């Protein structure tokens, strides 16, 4: 780990003022992603500004929705009664991610800012434009099992690993920030970037811009999150899907869909959303939508499995959210989100 100076911020303003002018400075809160990458020698900050003690740990009513402070832990948010009841996709995404310990530590602002699981990014001996701009991308011709189907570039094929971000994208959440030039609001789907030729930038946040809250807008519809992984729990998504939809008169009204594990950011599907609007829900419709959703997928050598997996997951998520098929577990829990469930559970032959 590179040597650094440590400083505990007393206020958001002070934190921003400490980080903004120093290109080698960075915020730290839960530390679950940051310390991991510092130990890997991937992150090498010279100044760590600790924002974990800032008064950003409230969940409050806000314009008919909820304002979740940036420093609220993933656990606190996931089990918050209003989050679980009104935005089950958020609780499901959180609880189907990481482990109890990590959820206790990780914050709501930090979670969507975690960095890719691309193995080449995490190994400083390998070429990676995201870690070291201009060094090349070892993943393109390498082992690209967990990499992107959509929106990749010749510089980077990494995917974004956060479950929470996929749910927040589908819910059109808003991100409040405080930056060197003052506060601003960012629509969540705009927070993350595609890699292009600057893959070292994951988000549109300026250096020294601090997320202060995540705002969930007023929403009376249903939301749901589904995740496929290689282990029954405590594993990153191979593919995931969040759906937020409203229904009226037997028809879908507004439908928002985001896929995880397939792109450098939560992958919203505007064409599919348009295709579903004002339609009566049916498996046939959803299958057609899924077909359309993956029409322009660009599979790599080792990730083509994500196409059929993603298509079916999208169908399933739409079926379950619209009520055509029951959830696999109680809404707002990991059991609703985890495709396949945990081991055991069957007894007598049928």
């Amino acid at each position: 780990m590179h040597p650094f100076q440590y400083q505990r911020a007393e206020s958001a303003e002070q934190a921003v003022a400490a980080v903004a002018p120093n290109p080698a400075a960075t915020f730290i809160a839960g530390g679950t992603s940051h310390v991991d990458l510092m130990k890997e020698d991937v992150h090498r900050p010279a100044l760590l500004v600790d924002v974990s003690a800032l008064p950003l740990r409230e969940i409050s009513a806000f314009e008919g929705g909820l304002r979740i402070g940036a420093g609220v832990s993933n656990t606190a948010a996931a089990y918050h009664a209003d989050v679980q009841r009104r935005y089950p996709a958020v609780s499901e995404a959180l609880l189907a991610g990481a482990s109890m310990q990590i959820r206790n530590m990780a914050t709501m602002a930090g979670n969507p800012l975690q960095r890719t699981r691309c193995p080449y990014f995490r190994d400083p001996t390998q070429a990676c434009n995201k870690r070291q701009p201009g060094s090349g991308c070892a993943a393109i011709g390498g082992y690209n099992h967990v990499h992107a189907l959509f929106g990749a570039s010749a510089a980077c094929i990494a995917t974004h690993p956060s479950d929470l971000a996929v749910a927040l994208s589908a819910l059109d959440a808003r991100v409040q920030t405080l930056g060197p030039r003052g506060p601003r609001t960012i629509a969540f789907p705009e927070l993350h970037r595609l890699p292009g030729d600057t893959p070292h930038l994951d988000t549109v946040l300026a250096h020294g811009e601090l997320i202060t809250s995540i705002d969930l807008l007023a929403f009376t519809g249903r939301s749901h999150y589904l995740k496929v992984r290689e282990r029954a729990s405590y594993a990153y998504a191979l593919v995931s899907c969040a759906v937020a939809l409203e229904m009226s008169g037997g028809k879908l009204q507004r439908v928002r869909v985001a896929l995880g594990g397939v792109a450098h950011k939560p992958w919203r599907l505007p064409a599919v959303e348009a295709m579903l609007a004002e339609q009566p829900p049916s498996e046939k419709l959803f299958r057609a939508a899924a077909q359309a959703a993956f029409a322009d997928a660009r599979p790599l050598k080792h990730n083509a499995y994500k196409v059929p997996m993603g298509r079916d997951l999208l169908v399933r998520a739409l079926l379950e959210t619209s009520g055509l098929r029951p959830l696999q577990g109680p809404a707002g829990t990991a059991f609703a989100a985890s495709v396949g469930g945990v081991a055991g559970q069957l007894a007598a032959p049928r």
Partner: protein
Amino acid sequence: MAELTDLLPTGASAPDAVLSDGSRLSDLRGRPVILAFAPDEWNPTHAYQSEIFARLSQEFGAGAAFVDTATEDWHALDCRGTLAAQFGVCGQQALFLLDEHGIVRWQTVVGPGQQLRAGQVLAALQALHPAPANGASGEWGSGLSRRTFVTATLAAAALLLLPGCSPGADDKSAPNAQAAARGSGQVAVTLTINGKTHRLQLDPRVALLDALREELHLTGTKKGCDHGQCGACTVHLDGQSALSCLTLAVMAQGKRITTIEGLASGEELHPLQAAFLKHDAFQCGYCTPGQLMAASALLQDPHTPAGSAVELREALSGNLCRCAAYPNIIAAIQEVQRA
């Protein structure tokens, strides 16, 4: 932590007593004596004891034939016995160093799960009888040669079981001495661990896990991956389970830190510890402290009403056990939940 108020203090005169071999403690007057109180339970630290003896030998007179004594004679002074009570020990593991006049010159109490460190015993012995400046094996101020000292100590080796201890509360000696040698780049870090306050000088890069294991020798908290991928390093921060490998020590200041060493109440195991034992909820034991810390936090957590085996499997999936004692872990937790 057990109360220390009744412990026979430094400077006090040691009470006399009959030892397990029939001799009297006062018979040993005229030479320094180490008295070690330990529960009369087995600890397979034969090698560890030999190690401490070897260090003592190296420092105080090479070649003293005492390792065999230690090997063959593992009788302890029972920490619940009469003599223990006279020293104010009452169930704790403790170590006393008496000088040749029978005066307590140094003592320490060992918390459950903590371990004695050779360096600490050596430091105490050194303080009692500083080595001559030329480093030669000469006569000491008391008139005892180093060789005599070792022999005398080992005459009392029937008493000498060293089950382990760690720095006492607010111990400033060992870690800080080391830190001083490391020079600049250190920051003052105050950690509250198992109810004790520890003031350390640390490199800000030190993870809480490494502070526990390397600085404070609280080695019950395990390093399995160092990257938040196995759960072996789980501790409680303000009552919630957290990974000490991904927590910088400097960021853990002001939090209540509980480690596996603080889970039991003195000699009495936490119900989960007892249930783990009963249900054989481990094999190699390396993930076990993390499993216990995660499970004990879960049982206190109002958020997660994990009751069924399925819920427990999901809630505790962050603690990997390569021996796969999982079904037994679940059985142990469910037994405690029912109780």
